[in-house]
């Protein structure tokens, strides 16, 4: 099942657990609860409600030409199961940053270090830009000295982006340490890089930087 569908579906179940509601109100409440980061199409809400009704998780009643939705006992059970379930995207991760670095390695460790530096700078720029945006909108929530966040949900959301970007930066630091240690081992033992790193082709010509500062293999 698609992750987004699961989250909208369970999000609506969660909101209906607070009490019966209408389709448009559910859209508004969902957007507020998710810190304004997830705008919903009202058609998407009604499609999801239709599926929930089909599955016996909600019932709909018409009042004053409006459709009021209510959670069923089965819907409550489904929601309880969701609260208890642990999110699991399933290893291994295949995000672009990881794949990019893994694919950079066969081009030589110096090239990988240059790619790594470039990505690290870009991530640091993103962190900086987000903080500047937070200052501009007044959504500064950096501890006891900060101002009040625009909403509590928005503050938690900003924290998530900050911490996940930080995790990527820490991972890049770890990669750099491993690559540098490996290069030092090769220097001290004098062994061929290809022998120490299966799948790596040893450079016969030294790489040279391209206009982005990344190392590029000489064309043959």
């Amino acid at each position: 099942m698609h992750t987004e569908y699961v989250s909208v579906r369970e999000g609506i179940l969660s909101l209906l657990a607070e009490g019966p509601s209408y389709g448009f109100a559910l859209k508004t409440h969902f957007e507020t609860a998710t810190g304004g980061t997830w705008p919903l199409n009202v058609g998407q809400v009604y499609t999801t409600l239709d599926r929930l009704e089909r599955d016996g998780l909600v019932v709909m009643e018409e009042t004053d030409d409006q459709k009021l939705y209510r959670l069923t006992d089965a819907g409550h059970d489904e929601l309880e199961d969701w609260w208890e379930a642990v999110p699991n995207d399933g290893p291994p991760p295949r995000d672009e940053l990881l794949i990019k670095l893994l694919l950079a390695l066969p081009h030589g460790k110096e090239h990988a270090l240059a790619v790594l530096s470039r990505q690290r700078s870009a991530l640091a720029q993103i962190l900086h830009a987000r903080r500047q945006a937070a200052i501009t909108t007044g959504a500064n929530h950096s501890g006891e000295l900060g101002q009040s966040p625009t909403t509590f949900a928005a503050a938690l959301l900003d924290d998530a982006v900050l911490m996940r970007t930080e995790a990527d930066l820490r991972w890049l630091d770890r990669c750099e340490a491993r690559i540098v240690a490996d290069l030092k081992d090769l220097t001290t033992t004098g062994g061929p890089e290809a022998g120490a790193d299966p799948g790596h082709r040893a450079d016969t010509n030294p790489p040279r930087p391209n206009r982005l500062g990344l190392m590029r293999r000489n064309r043959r």
Partner: protein
Amino acid sequence: MNSNAVVSFEAVTKVFGSGSTEIRALNNVTFNVFPGELVAVMGPSGCGKSTLLHVAGGLERPTSGQVVTAGRNLGDISAQELASLRRNDVGYVFQRLNLIPSLTAMENVMLPLELDGLGSRQARHQAAEALERVRLGDGLSRYPDDFSGGQQQRIAIARAITGTRKVLLADEPTGSLDTLAADAVINLLASLAKDRGTAILLVTHEPRFTAWADRVIYLRDGQVVDESIMSSSAIAEGTVLP
């Protein structure tokens, strides 16, 4: 050398030991820090971050190259001038706060000023002003143990910024704090840079703090391997690819 810089390194090398035990802690390092800038220095353990800070503050002399801090060339400075530089122009903040538990916040900030020969009244005035700047103006008579970890670090920062110091050197100042308290301390350092024009050199392991930095210098094996200039417009302009 850039004459506008408050801290300027030109081809600086620092070597400890000799022969087989020689360690090149800094290797041909060149960079500048300008007034009002917060520059983060990052890199793996042992890359030379703390040595760089010690050389910038005159706690270590460079083996070769030129270091100018607050307008003074540290290569040919007398011991007396160096002491004056440390007293008047450069402040230090470390992970270990070195606050004296039996002295109040005010007395902790006053103590180095009085040891430096300042009269009690003037020292009290400067200490109160510094504590006000770190937003602890209402806790002057409380003891360090009465404060949270983050607030204690702010007392240490107040002690480092008394008077008209041009440079603040911070070595892992948030190492013992939780993330919210740590962010608040870095927020304070950033505002000191912006509001008072203090040049801040921040050594840190926390990638998150690049969000506050104007520039980030990455060190590896004593060498600058990367220098990122932070600019929100760089991404918008497409000069930096996220």
